[in-house]
């Protein structure tokens, strides 16, 4: 970006046209007021002096743009002082010079300086006759010189500001914190900093040879967007930053954030800034992956917990049931053996049969005893906020619900009273209801899969939790038997979940029931009494 880097020196400052017009008026006025054929402003352009502005008066030999070849102005520039030549023909020093040849035999000139003291040039008057140039004339000339110097001062300040600003831009560009390049609508990249070249994998030679075109860097799916952006910069002068991709030199893609603005008065060119998003994208992907793994692990834990609970229950049920069954089998086989004796030992047979009856009853009582066991487990005396407990379970099941294509909504009522109970047990109930609902809906082939979990208070002032699904619903027969142990509508289901849920809720002094929704689905809800410490 060499053009942005150039330091400006006074002799390179362009005097803008409006100032030149003003200066023209000054020299015209000077020539008119002093009745001389020539009033001029010269500019030092070492080693030459050039006529910068000259009066439009009749007989003026000084033509703007031409080289001033005479010694008058040269003398003023060297001495940096006023020069007054009243009559060159009468003066040995000035008698023969080029000005005299062009008829200009008198001269009055003063130097013009930049604010830093550097010489700009001169302002001078020439006459084709002897002219004493009174003090009044000199004052007038000096006055106009001051006007010119005031203009130079503001010009220098303006350029100084530009320079400072450009130095700042230069810092930004050279710091290579972000990629910066100047482009045009033709697809060219006119200038670019190292950071940009690094992002796209090209080197400076590629840039110089015109091998880097932004139209080639842009993958085809971004072409339409890019066309809109070009229209945007043409219309508004800026391009809002947005994410896109560039092709790198090796053909791979790099994700970037690109924004920009039109450059100066040139609508066909714009400056763009580019941030490499590769690192951020990688970090985001990692964060997403970590989040996903975390959810998976939570779900696995929840599942494992369920399976472990089931496993424990089934194992203990198996143990309890196997004892009377084993006794029954042994008794029956013993009875058969006693019967086969000659003569049969009928008393032994009678005793064996009596035991078989006893053990049969015992086996029947086992399931009931297991339910009693759960009921008797004293719930922990925690005061808890049911919304908080429910919210945790919803979070836990969100990814499983999403996997089943189920949208989960929650309507948790604010300001609910605390309840008394075992958080883990109650969360297991909610977890069970949610997973049951999600599984029921995952089997439904059509219709929305919506799960609504709500909390509130019941008519009796208890806290109420409801899990409403849009699944296939339940038959009246199923509704009646749903909470019986070992009743299941699911292939592979153990049929213990809901009976255990009901046991837990009843142990907390609450109720769990189910009702059918219209037009479809089921709502499971339970109530829990408010903590006795609250009104």
């Amino acid at each position, binding site marked *: 970006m060499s053009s942005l880097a150039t330091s400006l020196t006074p002799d390179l400052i362009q005097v803008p046209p409006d100032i030149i017009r003003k200066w023209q008026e000054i020299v015209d006025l000077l020539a008119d007021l002093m009745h001389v054929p020539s009033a001029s402003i010269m500019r030092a352009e070492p080693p030459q002096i050039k006529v910068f502005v000259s009066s439009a008066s009749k007989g003026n030999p000084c033509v703007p743009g031409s080289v001033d070849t005479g010694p008058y102005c040269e003398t003023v520039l060297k001495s940096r002082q006023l020069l007054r030549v009243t009559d060159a023909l009468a003066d040995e020093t000035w008698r023969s010079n080029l000005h005299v040849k062009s008829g200009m035999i008198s001269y009055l000139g003063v130097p013009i300086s930049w604010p830093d003291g550097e010489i700009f040039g001169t302002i001078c008057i020439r006459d084709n006759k002897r002219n004493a140039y009174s003090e009044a004339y000199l004052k007038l000339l000096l006055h106009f010189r001051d006007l010119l110097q005031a203009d130079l001062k503001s010009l220098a300040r303006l350029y100084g500001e530009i320079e400072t600003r450009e130095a700042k831009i230069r810092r930004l560009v050279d710091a290579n914190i972000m990629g910066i390049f100047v482009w045009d609508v033709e697809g060219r990249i006119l200038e670019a900093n190292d950071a940009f070249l690094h992002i796209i994998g090209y080197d400076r030679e590629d840039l110089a040879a015109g091998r880097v075109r932004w139209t080639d860097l842009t993958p085809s799916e971004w072409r339409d967007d890019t066309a809109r952006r070009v229209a945007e910069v043409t219309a508004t002068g800026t391009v809002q930053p947005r994410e896109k991709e560039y092709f790198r030199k090796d053909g791979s893609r790099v994700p970037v954030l690109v924004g920009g603005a039109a450059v100066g008065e040139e609508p066909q060119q714009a400056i763009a800034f580019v941030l490499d998003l590769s690192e951020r994208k990688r970090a985001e992907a990692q964060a997403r992956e970590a989040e996903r793994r975390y959810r998976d692990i939570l779900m696995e834990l929840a599942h494992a917990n369920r399976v472990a609970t089931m496993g424990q229950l089934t*194992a203990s049920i198996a143990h309890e049931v*196997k004892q009377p*069954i084993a*006794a029954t*089998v*042994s008794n029956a086989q013993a009875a058969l053996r006693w019967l086969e004796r000659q003569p049969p030992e009928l008393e032994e047979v009678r005793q064996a049969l009596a035991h078989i009856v006893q053990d049969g009853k015992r086996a029947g009582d086992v399931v009931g005893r297991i339910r009693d066991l759960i009921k008797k487990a004293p719930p922990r005396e925690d005061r808890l906020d049911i919304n908080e407990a429910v919210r945790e379970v919803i979070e836990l099941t969100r990814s499983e619900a999403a996997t089943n294509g189920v949208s989960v909504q929650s309507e948790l009522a604010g300001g609910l009273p605390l309840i008394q109970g075992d958080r883990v047990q109650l969360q297991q109930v909610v977890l069970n209801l949610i997973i049951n609902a999600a599984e029921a809906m995952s089997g439904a082939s059509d219709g929305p899969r919506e799960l609504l979990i709500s909390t509130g208070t019941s008519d009796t002032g208890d806290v109420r939790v409801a899990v409403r699904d849009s699944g296939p619903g339940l038959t009246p027969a199923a509704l009646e038997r749903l909470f019986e142990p070992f009743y299941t509508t699911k292939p592979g289901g153990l049929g213990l979940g809901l009976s255990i849920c009901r046991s837990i809720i009843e142990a907390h002094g609450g109720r769990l029931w189910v009702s059918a929704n219209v037009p479809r689905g089921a709502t499971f809800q339970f109530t829990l009494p408010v903590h006795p410490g609250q009104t």
Partner: protein
Amino acid sequence: MAEAPIISVVDDDPSVRTATARLLRSMGFSVHAFASAQEFLSSPQLSETSCVIADVQMPGMTGVELQDHLIAHDHSMPIIFITAFPHDRVRERAMNAGAVCFLSKPFDETRLLECVEQALMKRQNEAPPHGSD
């Protein structure tokens, strides 16, 4: 059946204990039943027993601990385990320590008979001369 070998049944579950004892008696064995390992160990039948049939899960001393105890005190009577909670690790341990069988409840009478006969055979082959102390 004066010469019938004595078999001791150790099981804390009264139904299973009685039923197992009844089945063994119907097979012609002399049977003593005990509700715990300690009861068996402190009984006079300990030294007369030719074969022990023990439950694995019992309060106090488990079946496997009973086995360890018998080995430690040089009572080399064969043991048959019966359990409603078959666990591979427990089975492996019991069998490695010399158990004759490890049966799951409910078990079949023919399988039990095979195990008992196998145990008595083993007892005959290994019986030390002071076994009747």
